[in-house]
């Protein structure tokens, strides 16, 4: 009886789960394995599933060739960092207002922020390109920071509003009774409790700015381009340099993965709350 039960669990749980995980993880495995193969093995007659000899040559080449991958990393960091700070600061203030005050125009404004997530990227891309060009911002990091706030601010306002609504208002009441004003109640009481949520939101903003390509490819030039654009530029007239590309891919997702694992629990809670409640 016990054995039959175990068999059922293997067939209905472990096997399908394993198949799905293989499908999900194989591209990463393949990218990693490619990046540590030697060039001759990579383009050899036989496809190998684990390198015969480990080689870190592609990583060395990535950071020393003309692609300027290090500069691209620096540009990506600057853009993602500024976007995160600007979006978090403005969104926290807006979300606090939506969560703690009832004021005329609140619903209209909230709806405006929510609807922003619905605009096609390409609809904003084209006029923003022409506006940035006229303002002389094209090819500066600010062009990307501004473009990224089009989706990071609405999203963060919505996410933080959800987090704030879950914090009992009685916390602030107590502080106000004790003689705090609203500002110091916010900084002394709310902000410390909210900080894990702010970190999760910040990680999300950072990741989306770090990963973004469509705006980046039009709004940057060779000296200001970000990692996704630099990755694509490895595909040249001489064909694709898969060793460099896969090494670049691994370098790109490692920081994202590390940040994501620290923030994922809270982030998932915030994301799913909106869709599940109600």
């Amino acid at each position, binding site marked *: 009886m016990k054995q039959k039960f175990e068999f059922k669990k293997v067939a209905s*749980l472990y096997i399908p*789960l394993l198949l*799905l*995980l293989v*499908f*999900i*993880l194989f*591209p*990463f495995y*393949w*990218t990693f394995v*490619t990046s540590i193969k030697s060039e001759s093995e990579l383009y050899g007659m036989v496809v190998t599933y684990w390198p015969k000899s480990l080689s870190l040559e592609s990583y060395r080449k990535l950071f020393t060739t003309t692609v300027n991958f290090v500069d691209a990393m620096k540009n990506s960091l600057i853009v993602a960092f500024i976007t995160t700070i600007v979006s978090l600061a403005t969104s926290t*203030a*807006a979300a606090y207002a939506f969560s703690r005050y*009832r004021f005329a125009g609140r619903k209209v*404004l909230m*709806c*405006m*922020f*929510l609807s922003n*997530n*619905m*605009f*096609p*990227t*390409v*609809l*904003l*891309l*084209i*006029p923003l*390109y022409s506006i940035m060009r006229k303002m002389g911002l094209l090819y500066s990091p600010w062009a990307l920071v501004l473009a990224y706030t*089009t989706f990071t601010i609405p999203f963060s306002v919505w996410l933080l509003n*959800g987090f704030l*609504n*879950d914090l*009992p*208002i009685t916390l602030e*009441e107590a502080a106000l009774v004790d003689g705090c004003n609203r500002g110091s109640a916010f900084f002394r009481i709310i902000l410390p409790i909210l900080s894990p949520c702010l970190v999760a939101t910040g990680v999300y903003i950072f990741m989306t700015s*770090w*990963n*973004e*390509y*469509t705006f980046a490819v*039009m709004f940057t030039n060779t000296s200001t381009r970000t990692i*996704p654009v630099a990755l*694509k530029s490895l595909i040249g007239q001489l064909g694709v340099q*898969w060793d460099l590309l*896969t090494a670049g891919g691994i370098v*790109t*997702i490692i920081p*994202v993965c590390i940040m*994501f694992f620290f923030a994922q629990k809270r982030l*998932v809670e915030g*994301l*799913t*709350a*909106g*869709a*599940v409640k109600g």
Partner: protein
Amino acid sequence: MGAVQTKGDLEMVKKKTIWPYLLVAPALLIILCVVFVPVVNAILMSFQSYDLRRPNDIQFIGLQNYINVFQDSLFWKALARTILWVVFGVGFQFLFGFIMALLLNKKFFARGAIRAVSLIPWVTPGVLIGLMWRWIYDGNNGVLNDILLRLHLIDTKIPFLAQINTAFPSVIVAIIWQGIPFFALMILAGLQGIPAELYEAADIDGACASQKLFSITIPSIKNTIYITALLRIIWVANSVDVIFNMTEGGPAYSTQTLSVYIFNKGNALDLGYASSMAIIMALLLSIVAIPYLVSTFKKEV
């Protein structure tokens, strides 16, 4: 959510004050500048011959761009392809996401870690997704060809992304791969909200697994599925980076969806024509976006 605290709402919250407006102002100002001004700009540009390759020839031409769009066979093909892209892309994302959520909802060893790992495609840059799959599909050294050859499923290597009949299904597989985790995540949260008593009662009544699935599980998470699907449809329809980095819309435009077509036109600096297509696309997407806004907003405010 907001309704929870109505009783606790204090006088200070209701009191007329300028504070909420000041707090919303910075975010609002940025959004007005980077979203609403550009949208108005796009509407204006769509009525102009606005081609940056011919900067001295920018002028109002009325509906000419729209007339040209409707006579453009590439537009109609891209539109039809976008519908297939969304139906198959989101459809299979949902199917596999649902299966995955059902699996992850069971108890087993290292569940938390596996759940976190399986979310990685969702945080992977679209460029990298396009490039990883492009390498897997490669016609010479690609691993997919090698696996199929070893299994004797094919006799000669297939250049998946270079053939008209295989390129589009191949890019759809990549977008499915990207979207499974998000669906799984949302549905899993929905599943965990179903009260266990419902299943206990069904067990007492002697219901079988499929009966429980169709009469308890699916009805309970209907709303989650609906909202997630609408959101995914919008995202997938708007997605440019995955296709662009696999095929750039080729071969022979066979993978060019509407957003890729608009992006290509924008890259070619034909901004007026691109804008008019973007406006048409935004209007078409509002069929999905408006129900999403309504259903999200009803709950949240």
